[in-house]
């Protein structure tokens, strides 16, 4: 008679994280729930490049230079690396407040508001801080039960507060925030270069080949060329435009979210307090600042001896770490006191169905229905408060 030892797989923290993200590879990969458009992006990039390598590269390597396909391969690898890095990494999600912290903040708010007479609505939950001689309002997030840090915003698609929230990009299947903005920018930049490169060498290839065999024969020999030219033509307009738009934002140290809301538009002498008023400095801060680590400990092991499931949001991964007093946390997104100031999605019963789809006005042409690889206007879905 032998005892059968059941080895239980340890529960990792990502399994208990609230929010609407999906996790893969045991917590190493973090994405939004809807991934369909991301697969389309992958398919278009890989498909177009495969056609290029299959049809154009052999001819160009022989007739022009072997450096052409080599550079294309390097560029392709870079684009894929940036895309996967943007899609799979934590954008800078702020973990929700544990009950004690939430209660502490509630008490502070009540103390600040004083006595509210019955029937009178309590004032909105806003904290004012002064940054660089400018008053910035910090809003309270009813879902995450925290006062959002400056530049953070709540993404209703992923149901998370994200630090330095830029936008939720369906093409990469993830939010773009503090931690992955530079990867997103490098992705759009390198994709622009790749698209222009492929488009240019397609034209060169067709011209060179037509000189020998004639135009119609060329198209018959390399049918992939037509498809590539179509895809690249429509992609160039949108991706290059998007890159230009983000270059503009970086030079001003603004996020897409702030640009669309017009936070620093100059009305009422409101200026961007985060800008260094110097383009080089702004670019350096956005692109060259140290990489901020993730505060979501996705791969940490949840302690089995806790009496109730721990919702531990941020901690370092270690099995010998001592746990702070664990308590039952609820995933409720309902505020403690629903009132008119409560956004619809925080009221019980109303899902995050309120979606606001806006398009970035600057530097982007509306995508045509046949533009496959076009990076559509960033869909900004945000809480209504």
């Amino acid at each position, binding site marked *: 008679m032998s005892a059968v030892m059941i080895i239980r797989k340890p529960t990792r923290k990502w399994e208990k994280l609230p929010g609407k993200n999906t996790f893969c590879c045991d917590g190493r990969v973090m994405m939004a729930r809807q991934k369909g458009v991301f697969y389309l992006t992958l398919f278009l990039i890989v498909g177009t490049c495969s056609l290029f390598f299959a049809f154009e590269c052999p001819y160009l390597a022989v007739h022009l230079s072997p450096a052409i396909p080599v550079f294309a391969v390097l560029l392709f690898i870079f684009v894929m*690396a940036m895309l996967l890095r943007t899609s799979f990494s934590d954008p800078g999600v702020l973990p929700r407040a544990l009950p004690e912290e939430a209660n502490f903040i509630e008490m502070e708010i009540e103390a600040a508001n004083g006595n509210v007479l019955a029937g009178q609505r309590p004032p909105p939950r806003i904290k004012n801080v002064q940054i660089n001689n400018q008053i910035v309002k910090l809003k309270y997030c009813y879902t995450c039960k925290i006062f959002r840090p400056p530049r953070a915003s709540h993404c209703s698609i992923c149901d998370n507060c994200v630090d330095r929230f830029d936008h939720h990009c369906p093409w990469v299947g993830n939010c773009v925030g503090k931690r992955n903005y530079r990867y997103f920018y490098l992705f759009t930049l390198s994709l622009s270069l790749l698209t222009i490169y492929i488009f240019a060498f397609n034209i060169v290839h067709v011209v060179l080949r037509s000189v020998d065999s004639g135009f119609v024969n060329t198209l018959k020999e390399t049918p992939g060329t037509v498809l590539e030219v179509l895809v690249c033509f429509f992609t160039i307009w949108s991706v290059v435009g998007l890159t230009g738009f983000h270059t503009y934002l970086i030079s001003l140290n603004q996020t897409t979210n702030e640009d669309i809301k017009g936070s620093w538009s100059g009305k009422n002498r409101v200026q961007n307090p985060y800008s260094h008023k110097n383009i080089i400095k702004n670019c350096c801060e956005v692109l060259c600042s140290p990489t901020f680590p993730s505060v979501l400990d996705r791969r940490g092991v949840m302690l089995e001896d806790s009496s109730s499931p721990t919702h531990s949001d*941020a901690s370092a991964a270690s099995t*010998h770490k001592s*746990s702070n007093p664990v308590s039952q946390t609820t995933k409720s997104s309902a505020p403690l006191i629903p009132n008119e100031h409560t956004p619809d999605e925080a009221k019980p019963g109303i899902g995050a169905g309120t979606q606001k789809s806006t398009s970035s006005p600057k530097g982007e042409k509306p995508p045509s229905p046949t533009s496959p690889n076009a990076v559509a206007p960033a869909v900004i879905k945000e809480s209504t408060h």
Partner: protein
Amino acid sequence: MATEFHNLQELRHSASLATKVFIQRDYSDGTICKFLTKFPAELDSRIERSLFEETVKTLNCYYAEAEKIGSQSYLEGCLACATAYIIFLCMETRYEKILKKISMYIQEQNEKIYAPRGLLLTDPIERGMRVIEISIFEDSGSTSSSSTGSSPSSATAQ
């Protein structure tokens, strides 16, 4: 490490948690990580103001150093970009190294200063870098002298 863990558990069992104080972020210098040095009233009878301020100021210095945009961060950024950020799979970033130092510092502070006074500092990374949580224990008559801080090794980065 394991024995220290058990000692802390004993501390928690013998001393009951009275309340928690949360030191909030100081956003006056922008979005960099910095905590308010304002001394909370609940700690008035438990610890000297100067010790507390010293702890918070040192933590602020560590975070400022981690987020400093200087030649080292440029170099790291350029090198990483040149390798399509694949190098981050093998290399630890500067920020992570400093987070480890912070973790050690908090542990040391807990052992030397806070635990004997029945207090416990929590590493801010465990609270999303939003607050420094200080747990106040009621019965500080526990004899476990080797209680460790709850701060573990540095956060995983992606």
